[in-house]
């Protein structure tokens, strides 16, 4: 996972509420067995017509959106399916942060594990971002600050351990594997209560 410390980027705004993970990456692309290359199918049904030609009015197909790393989305982005293919597709496309007033739990969790920073902001900040698409913003994960072009700094919450992992580009697996002794002790003391899957 690529570490995140500071991002400077223009924003792409998709103001629709409840953008679900089926829109981010439709189910027919989930037969893949790898994480790679899903950026091409990001928002496929909004982005391409039936012949696979980019729809010119869709935001990601517009020249101003190219190279943007920050997606500003309407309330409750990432709702629905738990597919991690959604953050994989967003990251593969080039996004590194998603900003909204609410972000669905599983999507937020999956994003944190893939170098995609979920940023929750207050309604007023969100309104400003939606009204100013393409704004040049700074995301400072060290200080948990979103910097707006007028100099305002908006604090956002990030779970402490996830922040540590993102700043260092490390996965949680290493930490979990280091808990081996505690896990073994738990298994030994709770073994009788656990019913195995096998009869």
């Amino acid at each position, binding site marked *: 996972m690529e570490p995140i410390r500071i991002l400077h980027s223009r924003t792409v705004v998709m*103001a*629709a*509420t*409840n953008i*679900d993970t*089926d*829109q981010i990456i*439709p*189910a*027919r692309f*989930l*037969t*893949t*067995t*790898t*994480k790679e290359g899903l950026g091409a199918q990001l928002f496929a*049904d909004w982005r391409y017509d*039936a012949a696979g030609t980019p729809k010119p009015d869709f935001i990601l197909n517009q020249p101003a959106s190219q190279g943007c790393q920050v997606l500003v989305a*309407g*309330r*409750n982005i990432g*709702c*629905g*399916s*738990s*597919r*991690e293919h959604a*953050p994989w597709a967003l990251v593969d496309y080039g996004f590194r942060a998603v900003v909204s007033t*609410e972000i*669905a*739990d*599983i999507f937020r*969790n*999956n994003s944190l*594990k*893939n170098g995609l920073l979920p940023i929750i902001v207050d309604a007023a900040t969100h309104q400003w971002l939606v009204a100013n698409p393409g704004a040049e913003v700074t995301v400072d994960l060290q200080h948990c600050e979103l910097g707006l072009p007028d100099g305002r700094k908006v604090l956002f919450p990030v*779970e*402490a*351990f996830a922040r*540590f992992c993102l700043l260092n580009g490390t*996965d*949680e*697996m290493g*930490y*979990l*594997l280091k*808990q*081996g002794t*505690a*896990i073994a002790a*738990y*298994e030994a003391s*709770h073994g009788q*209560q*656990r*019913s*195995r*899957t*096998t*009869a």
Partner: protein
Amino acid sequence: MAKTLFEKVWDLHQVVPETADTPAVLFIDLHLTHEVTSPQAFTLLREQGLPVRRTDLTFATMDHSTPTTTDQIFGGVPIKLASARGQVEQFARNCAEFNVELLGLQNEKRGIVHIIGPEMGLTQPGKTIVCGDSHTSTHGAFGALAFGIGSTEVGHVFATQCLLQRKAKTMAINVEGALAPGVTAKDLILAIIHEVGVSGGTGHVIEYRGSTIRALSMEERMTVCNMSIEAGARAGMIAPDDTTFAYLEGRERAPQGAAWTTAVAGWRELVTDEGATFDREVQIDATKIQPMITYGTHPGMSIQVSGHVPVRDGDAVFAQSLAYMGLNAGQAIAGAAVDVVFVGSCTNGRLSDLIATADILRGRKVAPGVQMLIVPGSQQVKRAAEALGLHTVFAAAGAEWRESGCSMCLGMNGDTVAKGQYCVSTSNRNFEGRQGVGSRTLLASPLTAAASAITGRVTDPRTLLA
């Protein structure tokens, strides 16, 4: 201190408690896995040279991308969709390599992961249960803490049998009163989602409580808990009771003999204590609930089948949703044309759902031009339905009776709804394109779906119930 059901299960599974700097290390009792969200996790194990730590707590089935036509399952015809075939084959290889018990394509007990867990007695009160699938919330019907995870976390559980978790907030949904005839658990959960909103449960574990919930069968409780994620909740739980124990007793992977008695005694403790508090409480009057149906593009956009599409001037997202659906603000939903009817999924693919469907279809014909697909949730459900003769009722009505799987709920296996067509579906999501590119989904109960199949129009099932 008085504890909620969730807090009791949580506390029993903390390997390492959470701190300000680190989440809790939570032990997982049952890890269910399927072909779609596991390949990348197996790759992670391979890259790091790790085994599956607890193969005895890991169980695999294939359901999402599997075909539902008999020829492709049992007739020697290869899976037609090449990408699905590759995924299914790789899953079988992965399970064999990592020694994970798998219900393969032709296994007589194969089915949708959230149907087979309970059916086999793997799902039990007080367990922590995870799966790379958001509808894992289904298993909460047994008083388990069950939630969906991403593929990275699937890898974590494979390798360590644990997850890093922050404790969720709690929400009580108190439901009182009797459901009217023709009103089902599906109508109840659609009404709850309408009340709470599609993000109202974010950050919370729901506990469904009250006389209405206590009166539900296990299959109905599963339908309710299944759609907890559609209200944004991480999980939904119902305290185990005699209904739960009667369902589980004698199931093949449930405790047997003396172990059963001991288990039940422990499970009886899994109730929210008197005086325990929830972060949020919601009251629902079940007597007011009518058959429900969705008209928009998320599960919160629902109305009574006898109702009208709301009018919301100036709401661009709402207008876009109605434009996608080809419906008009203010129109009656009853009478709207239907092209396809789908009965199945982890929400409504159990035997009682098929019995309800047959009750409407018996002696009637699916309307000309309407395709009706009935897909049992598992092969065991299929055989149980056939033992009751339901398949002959379905065939006589002109419905298609298939092999089990997720099928048209998400259309990964090629069972899709064509662009612009309307599908009354007993599944759980009416998102744009969920059932196929350009498909238009109206979520409803099996009764409403079957009634709509008969008339070819959205129909209140009470008009067809004797």
